[in-house]
């Protein structure tokens, strides 16, 4: 009886604390809400039945942060974009991780008891693992981004759908992945000297497959069964997937069931359709362009948002690189004339989103906000002109919104007008 009373007393106060924390995290847009809430709403006895579960909690029903189906997408793909405009920190909630699903279908339902991981080919000891056996091996947890090669390009050149950071940069997400390093597995199997590449293949209906240089796989690739503290989500490859830090999305083979050590790349469909067709290659295509270059974007303020009035704002955004850790981020509020060094949220992880911040007082005049980053290799995010030069487009002729490039790491400008409306400056 006493215990029961205690429990009912604790509940409202912990609930208030939760609500306060939630409101603080929600940030800018809800500042007005907190004030009024502190008077009345937090004392409300109306239970939040819509968003409460004692078994598996969901966000408050006041939150409407959801993935968006990519418009103008290939008809056979279901592509859904992460809403970075509302993101805080560096972790993408698992339910908001971007997805590209073949067949426009729900993900496959794979029984973890039945699933197996086969390791064979040019190895001394072919091995087959159950999930339980895999979980007994030494594990690592690491924060890494995954980004689709086609992020920040717009198939078909439809400009109208390219307004928000969700639409320009929604095919990337960042999670804490838990699993076994591929190097651990390959050492168990014993790679023979002729083994130079691996074939990674999934158990999904289309058996997605990718040839991977063994140097890359041995460096930091992992077979992940965990994502953000729980099992990998079905649309992310349950019960296990390859995580290929820093490299393009197709390396991160979901529903992974097989690693074969081989002597050469098999040049399968994914190798060829994902080769760079740069105009300056004179009709040829570039293989192996695998690692993302340094890239950053301001998530707030960003396209589609509106500043409620002049005054102080904290500009924030994300920076990341397949080359390693982000060394620094610079932000310009005057269209690139001057740059200021942004503050990085620490710790900075390798091949992971890095959150950056800059103090800014908006004077109510037109402004163009943009960020550029440098990684620990010394590589710098490219301007549109530099990207055009790299690919061999004539200056001024590149159209970032059409299917005219890939692995785009161009500096993204957001234009703020006098009414505080924020738009994608590439569309103006």
């Amino acid at each position, binding site marked *: 009886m006493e215990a029961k009373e205690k429990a009912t007393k604790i509940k409202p106060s912990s609930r208030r604390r939760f609500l306060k924390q939630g409101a603080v995290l929600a940030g800018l847009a809800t500042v007005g809400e907190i004030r009024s809430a502190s008077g009345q709403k937090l004392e409300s006895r109306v239970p939040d039945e819509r968003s409460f579960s004692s078994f598996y909690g969901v966000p408050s029903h006041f939150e409407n942060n959801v993935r968006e189906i990519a418009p103008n997408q290939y*008809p*056979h793909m279901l592509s859904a974009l992460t809403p970075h405009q509302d993101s805080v920190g560096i972790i993408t909630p698992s339910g908001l991780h971007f997805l590209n699903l*073949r*067949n426009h279908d729900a993900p496959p339902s794979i029984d973890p008891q039945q699933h197996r991981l*086969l*390791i*064979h080919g040019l190895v*001394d*000891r*072919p*091995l*087959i*693992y*159950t999930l339980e*056996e895999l979980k*007994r*091996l*030494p594990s690592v947890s690491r924060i890494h981004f995954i980004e689709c090669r086609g992020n920040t390009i717009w198939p078909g050149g439809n400009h109208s759908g390219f307004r928000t950071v969700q639409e320009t940069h929604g095919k990337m997400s960042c999670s804490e992945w838990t699993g076994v390093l591929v190097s651990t597995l390959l*050492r*168990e199997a*014993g790679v*023979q*000297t*002729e083994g*130079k590449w691996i*074939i990674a*293949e999934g158990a999904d*209906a*289309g*058996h997605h*497959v990718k040839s991977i240089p063994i*140097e890359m796989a041995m460096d930091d690739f992992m077979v992940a069964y965990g994502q953000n503290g729980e099992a990998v989500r079905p649309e992310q490859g349950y019960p296990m997937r390859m995580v290929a830090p820093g490299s393009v999305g197709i390396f991160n083979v979901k529903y992974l*069931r*097989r690693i*074969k050590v*081989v002597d*050469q*790349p*098999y*040049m*399968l*469909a994914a190798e*060829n*359709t994902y*080769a760079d*067709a740069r105009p*300056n*290659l*004179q*009709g*040829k*295509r*570039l*293989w*192996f*362009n695998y690692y993302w*270059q340094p890239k950053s974007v301001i998530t707030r303020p960003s396209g589609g948002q509106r500043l409620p009035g002049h005054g102080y704002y904290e500009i924030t955004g994300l920076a990341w690189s397949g080359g390693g850790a982000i060394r620094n981020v610079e932000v310009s509020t005057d269209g690139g004339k001057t740059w200021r060094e942004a503050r990085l949220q620490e710790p900075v992880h390798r091949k992971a989103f890095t959150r950056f911040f800059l103090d800014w007082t908006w004077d109510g005049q037109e402004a163009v906000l943009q960020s550029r980053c440098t990684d620990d290799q010394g*590589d710098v995010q490219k301007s549109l002109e*530099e990207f055009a030069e*790299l690919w061999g487009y004539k200056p001024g002729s590149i159209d970032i919104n059409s299917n005219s490039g890939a692995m785009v790491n161009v500096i993204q400008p957001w234009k703020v007008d006098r009414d505080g409306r924020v738009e994608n400056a590439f569309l103006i």
Partner: protein
Amino acid sequence: MRSLFNLFVPAMSLAMCVGALAQGPTYKLGRTPTKEEIRAWDIAISPDGKELPPGSGSAAEGISIFAQKCMRCHGSGGRGSGVAGVFVSPTGPGGAIVTSKGPPFNFPLATTLWDAINRSMPRYQEGSLNANQVYAVTAALLYWNGVIQEGDVMDAKTLPQVRMPSRNMFIPLNPDYKKYMACNPNRLKCLNQGVLAPSEK
């Protein structure tokens, strides 16, 4: 001969560099898969075609299978329907196969085509084509694009020998990843060096 060679290589390596191979398994988890388990999943086809199964098919057979199994999405004669990939140049067989368009125009190997059809087609009925049918549909696509003759029979021996028109359109020509990585092709200064030199043929 091949299997004999495969036996020799580990034996020779063992004798020559015991140090490298002395590393045994540390955790001893998992088990040894059976040959049948490996064979059932060993579906990725290498450039030399060693994983190709027995069977054969010609373009004439493939055209009829294509009409039943593939046309609904890929259009009559592979000319497209808006739903899925166009497999034949609108300008007719031959000529335009080397373009930047989708498969099979840009596949450097005929084995890639076989692998893709066998692996992931037809959508929603993946794996429903038998080996003969996959050889036949592969032959039809190659014939429509002027790569082989109508009567040519495709099988585990002939398919890897087909010379694709796009074989030389890749940089680097040979898949030397280390050479490629010597100069990051995303750096402007590497544009005209090493692997990106237009002179490489």
